[in-house]
């Protein structure tokens, strides 16, 4: 009976508004029932079948209404707005209507499964599903016994719906496509009317209660009739009933079995690395070159170049960092690995090459200076006028204290600090010394003989204060060096005048042994020994260049030449302190005052010396006072406007080779004669030098140089040594020197008159 109804009802599901929900309930219920009865696929159906069989009575009860027709929905105007199921199992049997959400079913024989699927499809669709459920829900209000059935139906629905959908999915899709096609064709032509109606309340979830309160209306119904009573009777009947039998059951416990598995022990190794700031910086810098390159070739080149000079542990680090940066890790890293091995091989072959690198030589020089600084530290501190700190770890001997007491004496004295000396210079005569204009620690010493006999090849050594045992630069010259001067404008240029009259210019910055410019090929070169060279700043040079320096040289052949760096000229100009006036000393004792403007004539002559004038020096602090020394054992003090000397100084019967004003005190000058060094202080005595220092036996002192910034005196001798002496306790003041000198001069002049 139910099957029949189901078959009759299968095609369509039409809902009409006027109908009560119960009617539709019956239809759907029957469908479900038939579905559960006829379908044997669903296991869930089987399980629940017995209950459903029991419920069939209920269904029958519930299906009082004989309405077996499909549900139809009509709106107010009588139009059929029955929602159509989305799924149409049969092709060509549809008449799609836009007003209907679901298409109509034909009554011609859609299969039960299809109908079920449509029903379930509708349940899954938006409208009908809640509709049906609401139907169920409403029915359960009246009959509680249907609640369980309804829940079972729900359960049945879901698995079967799922299966139906899966089985008929292809059909659904086909149907849907056909539906769409038909719609489209019609859409193009006709106007479509859409009707929107208000739907009934949509129940999304309805969980009917399983228990009923005692006060409610259904309480009595639940208690009296129905399953509660049936269950109680069942329990009562169970006790002595033959239908029920006690029976034990035993579950088999499987016998446990122990199974052993052994694996290799996992060895744990701790690996740590320190990502220091500079390590990251190094990798970044080395990869910065790699990152710019598009391909992997140049990064590997970079690694090659860095790998070559790196020891064995380092290439691995660099390959790590390098490989991580290169995107093509596989190929390039293998290349790097092979190169790492190659580098190791190379490193083994040349451990000694370290010694030959340039950097090593530099480091050695620095080290040498550091070592020497340790040795000479007290002396250098004295030179620089720094307080000499005693070494705290040094053992205090008795002799030290005695030496300390000697220094307390207030007499002006010379303290010998050290001497520039090495084997190269042994035995050579120091002819000239000059400070570097820019670096006051650099000293150039020229070695050469004064007289014609014993001519050796000359030598110019550049000494640095930091290393008194070995000169920084050594230049060998062909003939003895007789004159030296450092340039002011380009402080690395050293002009050397030689005994054979040639002048060479050396660049002390480079380590080359050859002069930059040599004048030996010049046509106008001197024929006699060059006694003095000087770089002079040219205030108004030709061509409007200022501050250009020219080289002036004086030689024994009676010529004063001004040299340009490119070629030599014979312009007889020479500027000393004053811009246009210069003094020339001659071998017969005359001192000529000349001017640059007059090339041929002297302005005046200073006559006093009998022997050749060896040195003329202007006072650096008094503008028109100069000193001259000569071989006639005298030193003469002149003023520029007087052609007779103001003062003459004689101390010994030796030729005075060199004199120099002290750069700091206007009344102090030093003189070197053959046997001793004399420091004169005109402020204290004009008759005798205040300090006299004897030379070493067998050695003649030949040249003198004051240190510009400290109160030290350098004395060169014929043994090749340049000794550095510190002036101590010289009581000459600073500011009133010039006045003192002028006073002396005035007083002397006054007394002479």
């Amino acid at each position, binding site marked *: 009976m139910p099957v029949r109804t189901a078959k009759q009802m299968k095609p369509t599901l039409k809902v009409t508004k006027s109908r009560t929900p119960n009617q539709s309930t019956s239809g759907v219920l029957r469908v479900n029932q038939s579905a559960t009865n006829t379908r044997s696929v669903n296991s869930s159906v089987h399980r629940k079948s017995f209950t459903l069989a029991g419920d069939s009575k209920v269904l029958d009860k519930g299906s009082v209404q004989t309405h077996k027709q499909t549900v139809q929905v009509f709106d107010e105007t009588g139009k059929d707005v029955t929602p159509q199921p989305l799924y149409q199992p049969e092709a060509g049997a549809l008449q799609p209507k836009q007003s209907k959400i679901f298409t109509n079913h034909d009554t011609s024989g859609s299969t039960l499964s299809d109908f079920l699927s449509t029903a379930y499809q509708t349940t899954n669709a938006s409208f009908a599903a809640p509709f049906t459920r609401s139907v169920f829900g409403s029915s359960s209000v009246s009959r509680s016994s249907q609640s369980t059935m309804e829940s079972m139906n729900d359960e049945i629905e879901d698995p079967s719906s799922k299966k139906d959908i899966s089985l008929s999915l292809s059909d659904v899709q086909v149907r849907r496509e056909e539906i769409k096609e038909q719609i489209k064709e019609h859409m193009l032509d006709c106007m479509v009317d859409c009707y929107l109606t208000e739907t009934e309340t949509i129940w999304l979830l309805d969980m009917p209660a399983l228990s009923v309160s005692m006060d409610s209306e259904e309480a009595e119904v639940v208690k009296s009739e129905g399953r509660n009573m049936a269950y109680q009777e069942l329990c009562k009947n169970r006790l002595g009933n033959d239908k029920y039998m006690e029976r034990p059951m035993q579950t088999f416990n499987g016998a446990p079995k122990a199974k052993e598995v052994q694996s290799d022990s996992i060895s744990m190794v701790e690996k740590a690395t320190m990502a220091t700031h500079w390590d*990251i910086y190094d990798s970044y810098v080395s990869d910065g070159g790699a990152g710019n390159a598009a391909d992997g070739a140049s990064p590997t080149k970079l690694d090659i170049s860095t790998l070559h000079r790196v020891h064995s542990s380092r290439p691995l680090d660099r390959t790590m960092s390098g490989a991580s940066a290169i995107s093509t890790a596989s190929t390039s890293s293998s290349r790097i690995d092979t190169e790492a091995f190659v580098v190791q091989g190379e490193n083994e072959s040349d451990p000694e090459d*370290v010694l*030959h690198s340039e950097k090593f030589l530099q480091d050695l020089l620095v080290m040498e200076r550091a070592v020497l600084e340790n*040795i000479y530290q007290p002396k250098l501190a004295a030179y620089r006028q720094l307080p000499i700190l005693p070494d705290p770890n040094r053992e205090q001997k008795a002799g030290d204290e005695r030496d300390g007491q000697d220094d307390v004496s207030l007499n002006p004295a010379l303290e010998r600090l050290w001497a520039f000396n090495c084997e190269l210079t042994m035995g050579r005569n120091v002819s000239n010394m000059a400070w570097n204009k820019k670096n006051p620690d650099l000293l150039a010493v020229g070695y050469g003989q004064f007289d014609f006999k014993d001519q050796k090849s000359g030598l110019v050594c550049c000494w640095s204060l930091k290393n008194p045992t070995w000169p920084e630069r050594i230049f060998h010259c062909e003939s003895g060096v007789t004159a030296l001067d450092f340039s002011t404008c380009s402080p690395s240029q050293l002009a050397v005048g030689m005994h054979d009259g040639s002048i060479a210019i050396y660049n002390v910055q480079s380590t080359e042994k050859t002069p930059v410019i040599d004048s030996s090929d010049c046509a106008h070169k001197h024929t006699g020994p060059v006694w003095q060279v000087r770089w002079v700043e040219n205030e108004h040079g030709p061509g409007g260049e200022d501050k250009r320096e020219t080289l002036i040289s004086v030689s024994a052949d009676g010529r004063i030449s001004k040299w340009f760096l490119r070629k030599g000229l014979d312009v007889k100009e020479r500027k000393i302190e004053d811009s246009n006036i210069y003094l020339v000393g001659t071998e017969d004792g005359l001192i000529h005052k000349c001017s640059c403007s007059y090339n041929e004539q002297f302005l005046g002559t200073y006559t006093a010396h009998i022997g050749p004038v060896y040195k003329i020096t202007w006072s650096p602090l008094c503008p028109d006072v100069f000193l001259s020394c000569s071989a006639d054992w005298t030193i003469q003090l002149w003023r520029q406007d007087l052609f007779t000397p103001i003062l003459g100084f004689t101390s010994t019967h030796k030729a005075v080779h060199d004199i120099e004003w002290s750069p700091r005190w206007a009344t102090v000058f030093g003189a070197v004669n053959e046997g001793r060094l004399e420091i004169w202080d005109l402020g204290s005595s004009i008759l005798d030098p205040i300090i006299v220092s004897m030379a070493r036996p067998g050695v003649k002192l030949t040249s003198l140089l004051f240190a510009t910034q400290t109160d030290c005196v350098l004395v060169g001798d014929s043994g090749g040594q340049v000794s550095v002496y510190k002036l101590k306790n010289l009581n000459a003041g600073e500011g009133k020197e010039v006045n003192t000198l002028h006073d002396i001069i005035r007083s002397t002049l006054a007394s002479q008159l």
Partner: protein
Amino acid sequence: MAEVEETLKRIQSQKGVQAIIIVNAEGIPVKTTLDNSSTVQYAGLIHQLVMKARSTVRDIDPQNDLTFLRVRSKKNEIMIAPDKDYFLIVIQNPTE
């Protein structure tokens, strides 16, 4: 090369210089004026010290680098000139 030898001789002849050790980048002494065991000991210990000092200097400013290191002690002074490829170590006692 000759200059290197000359300079080494000059340093050796200075007052108070006790030893000169040149260690290459792998820590192997290349040239030494000290006995073998002391040389190896100095090389190892000084290597670590220089690494630490260099790391310190470069951590502060990665563009900087260590050029010279002097360790003054009661009895002597150790002067180290480090480089990527070698260490030059001179031990001097200047108060001798």
